């Protein structure tokens, strides 16, 4: 165990895998990022002592520590999954530091010190100036007091009995809820990264919507106090009791340049009778540069359980960032008449790789699921849809509709579809539609001929292609997501 302040190791000592990470960070140094990190970081490597240290640093109850240790012991026996259609150098899990005390964000004096590339993106996204400062770590003046925004927000929620806080806080304030639900949808035995996350997760969000309450506003990580630094091993747990509703927004369209290369988050959703959870994600982690150097590995396990009758879980995701994305937000449709939905746009450019999709597990009777996946590949990237629809023996009258469309830009990228369908009940109806198209030169010509420039023409065509997914996003998010797509695909045609 070592919880002393550790110096960053010099470049030569970093392993090959982490070199990419180093390139990323050093390129940020160039712009004056992270000059003086005051943080408490554990030595690299993972063992039971490190896990006990993490747990004790967070003042966790004994059962939590034990749970983490069990997860760790299980993880040690597991192998990294090899089946995704993605390629990357082997990760040395002993070369990662698993604990870093909440760092102070590096404070810059003005936006002049921020990477101009980043500012250009902010501008294109139409992010207000004060918000730009907040996101890029510039000291914020009193005009935009995020704390007060969050406070007012919290009061409104409190009145309704809604709990919205960090997992660490929830462990202290509501241990019974955590004990009951944590790991109940994604057990630590689920997969390699879920086990790792369970062992070392740093923090994340906790949401509890009590019976009969309709959450009056969209909950966003952005407004949760102390959460502006997203953790490397995030853990999110959302519980919607009977007859409740919540819409949760994860992420932010602003570009996020985290220095941790590996991200292995776990998200668990639980919807009880008649409850509805809408979970929207915009993922815009650093994708690496144009040559494919650097970028985040985003290996995420997201799953929702529709436990009650007539419950509904809806995942909407817009994935434009990360060097590698590996995630399958899924629904377990346990309650009769429960509904699962998955709407996804995944964009890959340059050397990005994405292997994403969903699993719809129909257990209850008359359960219904809808999958709409739109993959856009440009540059030399690879984009795969992987999905499973399983209709169990007892899922009388279950229905699924799947639509998978891929769009290719240029001729050096790839689009792949891996749909798996398992039906054990013959009353089920499963429909699958798929298409692959190349962005049409004739479409671009047509729009050009009407006075619309090529870049705008491409955006228009791509946005049209993603229409069905964007309409599922909350309004403001949808507008930003459209702009984000434009930025991600900039210069990919023409």
């Amino acid at each position, binding site marked *: 165990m070592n919880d002393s302040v550790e110096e960053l190791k010099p470049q030569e000592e970093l392993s090959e895998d982490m070199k990419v990470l180093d390139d990323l960070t050093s390129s940020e140094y160039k712009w004056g990022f992270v000059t003086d990190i005051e943080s408490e970081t554990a030595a690299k490597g993972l063992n039971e002592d490190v896990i006990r240290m993490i747990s004790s640093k967070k003042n966790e109850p004994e059962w939590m520590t034990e749970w983490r240790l069990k997860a760790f012991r299980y993880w040690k026996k597991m192998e990294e999954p090899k089946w995704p259609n993605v390629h990357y150098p082997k990760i040395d899990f002993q070369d990662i530091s698993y604990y870093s005390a909440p760092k102070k964000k590096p404070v810059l004096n003005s936006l002049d010190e921020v990477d101009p590339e980043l500012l250009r993106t902010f501008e294109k996204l139409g992010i207000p100036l004060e918000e730009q400062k907040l996101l890029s770590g510039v000291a914020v003046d009193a005009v935009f007091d995020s704390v007060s925004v969050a406070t007012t927000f919290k009061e409104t929620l409190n009145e309704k009995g809604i709990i919205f806080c960090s997992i660490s806080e929830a462990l202290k304030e509501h241990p019974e809820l955590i004990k009951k639900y944590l790991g109940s949808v994604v057990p630590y035995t689920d997969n390699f990264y879920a086990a790792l996350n369970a062992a070392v997760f740093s923090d994340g969000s906790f949401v509890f919507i009590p019976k009969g309450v309709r959450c009056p506003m969209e909950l966003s990580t952005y407004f949760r106090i102390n959460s502006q630094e997203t953790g490397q091993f995030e853990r999110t747990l959302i519980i919607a009791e009977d007859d409740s509703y919540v819409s949760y927004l994860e992420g932010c369209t602003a570009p996020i340049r985290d220095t941790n290369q590996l991200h292995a988050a776990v998200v668990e959703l639980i919807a009880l009778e008649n409850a509805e959870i809408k979970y929207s994600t915009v993922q815009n982690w650093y994708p690496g540069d144009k040559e494919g150097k650097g970028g985040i590995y985003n290996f995420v396990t997201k799953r929702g359980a529709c436990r009650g009758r007539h419950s509904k879980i809806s995942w909407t995701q817009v994935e434009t960032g990360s060097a590698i994305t590996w995630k399958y937000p899924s629904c377990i449709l346990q309650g009769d008449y429960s509904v699962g939905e998955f709407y996804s746009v995944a964009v890959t450019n340059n050397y990005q790789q994405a292997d994403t999709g969903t699993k719809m597990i129909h257990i209850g009777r008359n359960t219904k699921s809808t999958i709409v996946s739109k993959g856009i590949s440009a540059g030399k990237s690879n984009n795969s849809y992987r999905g499973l629809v399983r209709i169990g023996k007892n899922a009388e009258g279950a229905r699924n509709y799947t639509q998978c469309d891929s769009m290719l830009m240029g001729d050096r990228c790839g689009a792949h579809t891996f749909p798996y369908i398992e039906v054990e009940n013959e009353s089920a109806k499963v429909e699958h539609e798929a298409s692959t198209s190349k962005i049409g030169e004739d479409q671009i010509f*047509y729009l050009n001929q009407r*006075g619309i420039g090529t870049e705008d023409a491409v955006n228009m065509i791509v*946005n*049209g292609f993603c229409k069905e997914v964007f309409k599922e996003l909350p309004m403001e998010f949808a507008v930003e997501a459209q702009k984000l797509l434009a930025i991600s695909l900039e210069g990919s045609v023409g």
Partner: protein
Amino acid sequence: MLSIKNLHANVEGKEILKGIDLEIKPGEVHAIMGPNGSGKSTLANVLTGNKNYEVTDGTIFFDGKNLLDMEIETRAREGMFLAFQYPIEIAGISNATFLKTAVNEMRKYRNMPELTPKEFLDKIKERAKILGLDETLISRYVNVGFSGGEKKRNEIFQMLMLEPKFVLLDETDSGLDIDALRIVSEGVNIYKNATNSFLVITHYQRLLNYIKPDFVHVLYKGKIIKSGGKELALELEEKGYDWIKEEELQTENK
């Protein structure tokens, strides 16, 4: 308005246009006729700037400006409009959104303010009425699920919205029944005035019963081999293209 001199153009390395000379003045309607493969569509694509077509020689001036120096969208913003033979479908984008973007691009180019939603809507309604265009077509995705006639009508509708000064109609009559043909022609005739010019590309004389040309040119093997008034179109209708081909052959042999 449009001045084409000694225009040569290639498609995939093969020479299709072999020296075209054509002069179109404001307010004039010209028709280009010719058998299949004579280069009619190539001319339309070269004029609009399609990059699959390579100009190897000659000049084109549009309102005194060198057209060949301009990008496709610049030509469009300068007032050149092509009514496509096969209008393209764009899923997920409504006709209205598409037109609003296009109209405002044109206005921006002319340093005019964007139309307000109300102004745009009024304009769209007014123009749709002229063509008897079903208003639901405006909110539908661009050309998606449109019938052949609806697509062609939509082209003319776009023309009315974008108000170009030079209109190329590329085989607009193909695949149209008589009623649709009449409506489309009416749209063109309403738009025709002393300053707008048209170049009508057609295989058949039929369309020219509705859109009366001032000049008719016969394109054959990449060259204009005969020009005349509208009576030339009737003559072609009556005798076909063979007599011109023979005439041309005789000239060549002399």
